[in-house]
């Protein structure tokens, strides 16, 4: 099953065709939210008056290079943070991911206007890869952190006009790096990432 999927992806990447003026490189920034993989930690924090540890805000910096007609390689850094306050205390939780991914352009549409090509394109890529994940919390000077490997799978759609593109992205991060609280809860470095931002292709 996995081997078949890999072969399909490889074929899609190698057999597809690319226009001569298609982008070779892309860089982008997305802002968004990260719904953390909560195993009780965020619920426990809320019980003790520190609500919101399960959801972080932040962004993703991403760069990609097209290595075959439909096949891209990406490197990205993602960072998300949340702050829960109670009287004078602040619970800050941050998670970061440094990820390398392979992406396949599953769909590309370039409209024609009166028979002429316009410098606009809609592209949908599916991506998967892995990297290093960290998660850290800090409450009134007491902090914990954890790091470990993880996987990311996701999809992103980019609507571009010449070099400038607008991207909507979703990614699921799976990592066992985990913060454990004192009453049996855990917060993992993985979760669901959604974001929107700008990209530049050249």
């Amino acid at each position: 099953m996995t081997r078949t999927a890999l072969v399909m992806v490889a074929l899609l990447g190698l057999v597809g065709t690319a226009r001569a003026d298609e982008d070779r490189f892309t860089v982008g920034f997305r802002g968004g939210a990260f719904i953390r993989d909560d195993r009780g930690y965020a619920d426990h924090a809320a019980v003790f008056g520190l609500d919101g540890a399960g959801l972080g805000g932040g962004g993703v910096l991403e760069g990609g290079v097209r290595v075959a007609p439909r096949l891209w390689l990406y490197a990205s850094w993602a960072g998300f943070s949340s702050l829960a306050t109670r009287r004078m205390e602040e619970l800050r939780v941050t998670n970061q991911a440094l990820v390398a991914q392979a992406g396949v352009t599953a769909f590309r549409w370039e409209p024609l206007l009166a028979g002429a090509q316009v410098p606009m394109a809609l592209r949908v890529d599916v991506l998967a890869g892995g990297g290093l994940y960290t998660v850290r919390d800090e409450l009134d000077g007491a902090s914990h952190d954890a790091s470990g490997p993880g996987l990311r799978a996701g999809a992103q759609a980019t609507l571009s006009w010449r070099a400038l593109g607008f991207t909507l992205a979703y990614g699921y991060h799976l990592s066992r790096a985990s913060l454990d609280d004192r009453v049996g809860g855990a917060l993992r470095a993985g979760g669901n990432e959604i974001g929107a931002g700008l990209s530049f292709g050249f």
Partner: protein
Amino acid sequence: MLTHATRSPLAIAAVAATVALSGAACGGDLLGNEGFEIDCDGKPCDWKVLEGAPVTAASWHDGDPGFDLSGSGRVVIEQRTAPFVLDTRELVLRAALVRRGGATLRLELDWYVAGAGEGPTYWDREPLLVDQRATSVDDRGVFELEELVSTPSLEVSGLALRVVKDGEGTAMVDEVFLTASAVTP
């Protein structure tokens, strides 16, 4: 990695005093040091251990102090607060609790009116015990208790709140509040 830094008790006390001055009658909290953060020589200010040997320790997180009542046997902690003026008989008692194993938890509220004796404090002036009311905790796990409680009359001006743990198991208490409810008498 674990690090810990101390907080300024003075700064916390200033915030607590500001909150207290807002007045219970205006919907403020009747209790002090609700989160056990204000430290008096290594013990949480305003709270007294009546029975057992609870540990003032981290609660759900190393950076969040609370009372750990775990272990076997009876443990009782108490806070006395007075004088106050109430404009409602209905109050909401809230607490962040952990209860596991065979531990039982009970919150007892002794209501007083001012006494006619002599002394520097409300409690020295022999206040009269008007009523003893209690609520048992049925939930298990890590949860927020929220109970509607009532005072015997609007004349009460003193309260002794006790957290009583019996049996053997894990029990923690933190974030204890007693505030006026939205319900009018």
